[in-house]
């Protein structure tokens, strides 16, 4: 009995001691939470130093392709912010990567009569490519794209550019209850254009995502909010003749006859360029806040609306996350004072599109590339779907569809829509 009492005492003492220890911990029993994210510091360089880097080099391995331009027997494929791959496409069955034009800050190009116009950060550069592979910068128009002087809320002087980012991991304490802390939100977004050649010069064909368009003797460029008309009568001495504010989130421009079809995140705008120096607003078609390349012919405009999915905005300047809308809208533009929606077609995640004759080709994200018989725009007939991983831009020209996709540059011959033939694939 005594022994049992001793044991109970020992147990009680030990228990009490342990409870005291635990109780003493209670005051400091705080939960901890941290949030780790990256902090970016811009790397700024003088534009004069950047211009000095523009030159021709040996062909580079192709890692990422942005927008594309078809010019004579060549494909000019942009490696965003780095330069332009020059690909000889004389033999469409076996294109060859011939050279690379180092052009930092490049996102868009247009080519007329052996003269290449490109953005170089905020500047517009004019490059003579008549002696390829040799290239020569002949003119620079400074600060033509002032919106490119800023990125992620950081602005630089007109003589400078943000060329990269120093990245550091940062750890901060986080509310243990997971309270929301809101951060900056930004939101952006490719065709074969119906261009008319200035004088007798040949004009490069751009994809539907292009911000550059050539019509008659004028180069039209869109920034995120401006439409500029540039007289290129003298190809090597372009002169800006007008700059017009046309609204925010402008993404693409497509020329057709005396009209410019401009794609923005909130709608399609039509400008009349009968007087080339002064584009005049004609009409618009509004839609939800999504990315929307647009192409047009005499009576119809084709607009693909897509929402940029997570982690898939690599080819866009801004991401489109305004809604879950993925469709093709066909509009009747025969009477521009009364633009009518003819039909909406559901798509997976449509991006670039091109049209030649009765053939409409749409890059539909992960579903691949779709060929339609567009004889009746109100009743498009899907002829064939070719599974290409994340196709995003297409140029339709002379019965050949040039498709840029995540894993390569493809060419298909569609002159006989019922017998679409694979021509080549340039693997990145």
């Amino acid at each position, binding site marked *: 009995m005594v022994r049992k009492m001793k*044991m109970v005492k020992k147990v009680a003492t030990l228990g009490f001691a342990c409870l005291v220890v635990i109780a003493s911990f209670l005051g400091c*029993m705080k939960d901890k939470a941290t949030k780790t994210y990256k902090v970016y510091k811009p790397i700024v360089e003088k534009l004069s130093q950047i211009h000095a880097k523009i030159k021709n080099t040996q062909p580079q391995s192709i890692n990422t392709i942005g927008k594309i331009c078809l010019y004579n027997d060549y494909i000019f494929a942009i490696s965003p912010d780095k330069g332009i791959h020059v690909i000889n496409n004389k033999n469409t069955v076996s294109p060859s990567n011939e050279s690379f034009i180092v052009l930092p800050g490049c996102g868009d190009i247009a080519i007329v009569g052996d003269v290449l116009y490109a953005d170089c950060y905020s500047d517009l550069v004019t490059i003579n490519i008549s002696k390829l592979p040799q290239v020569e910068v002949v003119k620079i128009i400074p600060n033509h794209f002032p919106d490119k002087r800023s990125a992620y809320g950081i602005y630089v002087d007109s003589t400078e550019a943000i060329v990269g980012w120093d990245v550091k991991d940062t750890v901060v304490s986080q509310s243990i209850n997971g309270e929301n802390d809101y951060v900056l939100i930004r939101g952006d977004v490719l065709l074969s254009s119906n261009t008319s050649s200035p004088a007798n010069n040949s004009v490069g064909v751009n994809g539907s995502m292009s911000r550059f368009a050539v019509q008659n003797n004028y180069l039209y460029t869109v920034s995120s909010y401006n439409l500029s008309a540039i007289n290129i009568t003298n190809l090597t001495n372009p002169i800006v003749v007008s700059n017009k504010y046309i609204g925010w989130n402008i993404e693409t421009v497509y020329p057709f006859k005396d009209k410019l079809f401009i794609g923005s995140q909130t709608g399609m705008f039509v400008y009349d360029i009968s007087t080339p120096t002064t584009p005049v607003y004609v009409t618009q078609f509004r839609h939800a806040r999504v990315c929307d390349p647009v192409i047009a012919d005499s009576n119809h405009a084709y607009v693909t609306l897509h929402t940029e999915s997570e982690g898939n905005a690599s080819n866009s300047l801004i991401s489109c996350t305004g809604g879950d809308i993925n469709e093709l809208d066909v509009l009747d533009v025969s009477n521009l004072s009364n633009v009518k929606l003819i039909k909406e077609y559901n798509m997976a995640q449509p991006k670039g599109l091109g049209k030649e004759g009765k053939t409409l080709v749409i890059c539909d994200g992960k579903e691949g590339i779709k060929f339609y018989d567009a004889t009746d725009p109100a009743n498009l007939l899907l002829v064939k779907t070719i599974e290409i991983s994340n196709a995003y831009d297409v140029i339709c020209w002379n019965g050949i569809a040039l498709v840029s996709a995540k894993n390569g540059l493809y060419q298909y011959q569609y002159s006989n829509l019922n017998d679409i033939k694979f021509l080549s694939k340039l693997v990145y």
Partner: protein
Amino acid sequence: MKNVLLYLLSLIAFSTLNAQHQPKKIHFTSINSVGMLNGEIASTFTMQSINGLQYKKLSAGIGIGIDNYGYRTIPFTFYIKHSFLKGNTHPFLFSDMGVGKYVETNNQSEKWPYGLKPSSVKNSFCGEWGIGFEKTISNGCLFFMSAGYSLKKFAYTQKLPWINSPTDNEYRYNYSYNRYVLKMGVQLY
């Protein structure tokens, strides 16, 4: 949740049937408990079933349970317990360490920052250490109460699609939940 509960109850029933016999030197044991986890943000219910072997005063086994504190997890642990003294009532020390696997709850979307489902949730460390008392209540059955410290780590990554940043746009969250735990239950052997 329902499935986990059913599984735990089945495990307890199975253990009970298998444990009601005269113990051998090394024998099967099953420790089943319910309790409370108390910390800075909540007091939540927890339960656990540990099944393993007992040798004299040493018990060890593999545990499975439910931890509702913060983000719900199912802890898979290795448990070890040592009893002291002799007689019907005696103290013990225990250590329980393993990995907590995240389980989604019905109102989970409200808990994620921005209401955004994470791109990945990491299975993270969890552990408990403490003391207790156990009392023999019948042949092959001990009743016990215990108290101790409980640590649960929890980590996940969110990709924020609306933020346009020069490289990725990920937020990585790491949580350390420090709680004290009170449990009661039975050990069958």
